[in-house]
């Protein structure tokens, strides 16, 4: 899993590099604009971001797509009346037709139904893994970033070890050797284990840059407890990159699960996973291309919408990076 957000971060522990948001435009424009009184740039970062987001086509498109996909995951019945598991061998490998809009697969199952139901597994894994690793990363990352010192060094070394193992390779080894039966739970677990270090790096560096801010010093001088400082000052202000990265991570995880299932080390039958469907399709791409195209299309669109959303969020929350 590549660090989409900021790969070169792992070299720089220097919080100063994060400091200093500048307005879009040249330094000259900045100086000229500085003279204006706050022109609607007051209000919290999030309120401002929401206002900007509402207008962006990127956000709207990806938002709509994601909503559709989540709906598909929760209520697949809304999109298809067929049962993905009711398969008739005599209907094997039919081309798309009015009866079976996406055709049928080797077993004779309705492919449209299978594709729609595939969303459930992908979205679930994407969200479960992302939410859990983010949570773990926030807890550990804020501790490491805020306290620094020995705690930080230990956590940093541990994450270094994790980083030494590329995701797919690690996934293959763990999944193969650890689990005979691989369902949603097992695959999610492995992806969490492999994924949290990247998120942790991000949280830690965001915390590091916020920690240097003056308002943290004044809170400490006032005697506010560490936990409170972390909860009320550091976290809310370092969440922006975390939110962006988490959104993108959902897409990355969905892609990773599909890749692992494709390789045969991810989910197994009878789970319905796009990766698995593509894997069984590979020997038949010439004779039955629909087997590949539909899950491929859905998979790509799903990953695309999450990454697009992440991009839109980043543009709104962190003007520096435009």
């Amino acid at each position, binding site marked *: 899993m590549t660090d989409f957000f900021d*790969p*070169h971060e792992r070299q720089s522990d220097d919080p100063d590099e994060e400091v200093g948001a500048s307005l879009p435009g040249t330094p000259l424009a900045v100086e000229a604009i500085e003279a204006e009184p706050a022109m609607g740039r007051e209000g919290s970062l999030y309120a401002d971001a929401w206002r900007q987001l509402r207008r962006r086509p990127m956000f709207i498109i990806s938002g709509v797509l994601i909503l559709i996909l989540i709906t598909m995951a929760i209520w697949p019945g809304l999109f298809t009346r067929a049962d993905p598991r009711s398969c008739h061998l005599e209907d094997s490998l039919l081309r798309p037709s009015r009866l079976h809009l996406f055709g049928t697969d080797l077993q004779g199952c309705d492919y449209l139904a299978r594709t729609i139901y595939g969303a459930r597994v992908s979205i679930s894994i994407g969200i479960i893994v992302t939410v859990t690793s983010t949570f773990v990363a926030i807890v550990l990352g804020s501790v490491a970033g805020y306290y620094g010192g020995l705690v930080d060094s230990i956590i940093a070394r541990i994450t270094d070890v994790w980083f030494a193992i590329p995701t797919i390779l690690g996934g293959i080894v763990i999944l193969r050797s*650890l689990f005979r039966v691989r369902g949603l739970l097992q695959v999610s677990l492995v992806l969490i284990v492999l994924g949290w270090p990247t998120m942790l790096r991000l949280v830690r560096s965001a915390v590091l840059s916020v920690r240097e801010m003056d308002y943290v010093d004044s809170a400490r001088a006032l005697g506010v407890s560490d936990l409170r400082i972390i909860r009320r000052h550091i976290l809310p202000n370092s969440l922006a990159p975390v939110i962006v990265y988490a959104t993108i991570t959902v897409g990355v995880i969905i892609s990773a699960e599909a890749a692992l299932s494709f390789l045969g080390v991810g989910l197994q039958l009878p789970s319905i996973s796009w990766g698995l469907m*593509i894997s069984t399709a590979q020997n038949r791409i010439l004779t039955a291309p629909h087997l590949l195209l539909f899950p491929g299309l859905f998979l790509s669109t799903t990953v695309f919408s999450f990454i697009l959303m992440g991009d839109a969020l980043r543009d709104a929350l962190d003007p520096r990076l435009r």
Partner: protein
Amino acid sequence: MGRYLVRRMLQFVPVFFGATLLIFVMVWAIPGDPIRALAGDRVMAQSVQNELRSRYNLDDPLLVQYGKYINNVFHGDFGEDFRGRPVWDLMKQRLPITIRLALLAFGFELVIGILAGILAGVRKGGFMDTLVLVSTLVVIAIPIFVLGFLAQLLIGVQFHWLPVSGVQNGLKSYLLPAMVLGSVSLAYIARLTRTSLVENLRSDYVRTATAKGLSRRRVVGIHTFRNSMIPVVTYLAIDLGALMGGAIITETIFNIPGIGRAVFEGVQRQEGTVVVGIVTFLVVVYMIANLLVDILYAVLDPRIRYD
């Protein structure tokens, strides 16, 4: 510079042992019978199992096991498959092919990626910029195996431009797989270059360079270029890991008999030891590559040398 190097090397050691230990533990120290787990559904006589137990030192305490395992690694012994053939032999045979594929992919993604990134960044907001941003997003979103199949279908089968299977056609066989393999990284590199360039173009030192009466070409090509490349170089280290994972998929799709395919075959054929052996090897390579990139980074950015 020397101090930085020593520090990096020192950091390397615990990570090396940590990572290999991690893999080791996950394979050999799980509850239950590791041999059974590695063998999968294969039926094995008890005598064979016993032999394997002693071969892999399973009756020794954990740390001794690990010690012998690492010792073996240093001697090039990465285990054997269930027919007794050393994994190292398999790797020796397959590695050159993968190296060729990887180098090609690497060159492709670097050249085109950086070029695209520069074109996009220099005229931010322009047509090229939007084009690059959108296309890279699409490429990143489409999982590599889908991309691979699409490429096969369209370029190979439909238009017959390039071969799609095996390595019989010499260099040509590697072209399409290399492009697919490098595609996602290319997208990241282009984006990273662009962002980095845009950020650097806004720096104060660009203003100074312009005030010195230097041409735009020189300001962008020399002054910002070096600074912009720094994050890209760091990315390349992580990229190698992605390439390894991607190679497994790409070689499988395009039927390239490289190390990646060997892993896939190992998974398919329930050859657990082969999988573990190759993965261990790849992880070590990855770590060394990262170390080298860190050193390269220090060469590029003098500020780091004195940390």
